[in-house]
């Protein structure tokens, strides 16, 4: 009887340990990416393969290997994202497209219909993907909106912008990423 009790206890403790362990690893591991980027440790971006917001295809970050990439996380209900959207679009047209710098907007934790309306309202022309379920935002350690990462040609994060970007800040980060070769 003692053995049965001990086995029962062990099973319960192991199950609880697994669940708690998974939660701790998920939260601390993902959050480390922006922190490392902010500390200048040049962490490798987690990557993604997501459906476009329009639903007419998929975009994988790996397709942009060899290019500087600006990854912007946003949501339609986020007020700072509304303020930031026209500036991002302008920078895409002036700094991105002419210089082969990729811009990707990742819409996350959002109603897809709202996000499409947002993209239409702000006339966003750079590629937009839809992070259904928010898994990619979690992998990247995104905890507030907007957040923007600038990746160098090897996919390492040279800059992280929690909150709205500034034109000068993003230009400098793009220049730094390009300078890394």
């Amino acid at each position: 009887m003692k053995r049965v009790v001990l086995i029962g206890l062990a099973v319960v403790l192991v199950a609880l340990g697994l669940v708690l362990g998974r939660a701790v690893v998920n939260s601390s591991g993902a959050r480390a990416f922006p922190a490392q980027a902010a500390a200048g440790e040049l962490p490798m971006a987690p990557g993604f393969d997501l459906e476009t917001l329009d639903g007419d295809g998929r975009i994988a970050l790996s397709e942009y290997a060899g290019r500087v990439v600006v990854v912007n996380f946003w949501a339609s209900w986020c007020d700072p994202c509304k303020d930031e959207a026209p500036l991002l679009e302008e920078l895409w047209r002036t700094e991105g497209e002419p210089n082969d710098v990729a811009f990707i907007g990742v819409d996350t934790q959002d109603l897809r219909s709202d996000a499409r309306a947002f993209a239409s309202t702000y006339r966003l022309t750079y590629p937009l993907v839809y992070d259904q379920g928010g898994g990619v935002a979690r992998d990247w350690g995104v905890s507030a909106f907007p957040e923007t990462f600038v990746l160098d040609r090897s996919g390492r994060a040279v800059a992280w912008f929690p909150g709205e970007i500034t034109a000068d800040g993003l230009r400098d980060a793009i220049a730094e990423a390009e300078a890394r070769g």
Partner: protein
Amino acid sequence: MTRALLLLALLALLIAPAGAAAAEPRFEMADIESELMCPTCQSRLDMSSSPAAERIRAFVEEKRQAGWTEQEVKDALVADFGPAVLAAPPAEGMGLVAWLVPMLAVGGGALVVAGLVVLWRRRRADDEADDAPVEAVAADGAMDARIDAALRALDD
């Protein structure tokens, strides 16, 4: 012509109540709000006033007024936000863990309590068995008589 118009009017009368019934809300906001999570603040929708929660609340109300069922609204939200938008996870995949762990904890706890009760009763039974010969001796009338006789002999 008049007959055709009358037929149309009759048809409109027949269709109107059916349409109105279809758009009638089929669930209460308070019920579904306690079963949904705010995806950005990790708290229940009825306890959150974040922008994301407000938008979801507006979406739910819009669909409720359009006559959607509670399940249809939940399905639409899960399609966009994933199963984490549900306060109670589905009993499949990783969601199954959330259901199994409390069951295992309760089951394990019951096992421990049952085990302790059995051990306690067994120990008590052993203690009673140890005490039994003393009581038997005390209850033995012949032994009492022999002791009394021995004491009397000593007195004499």
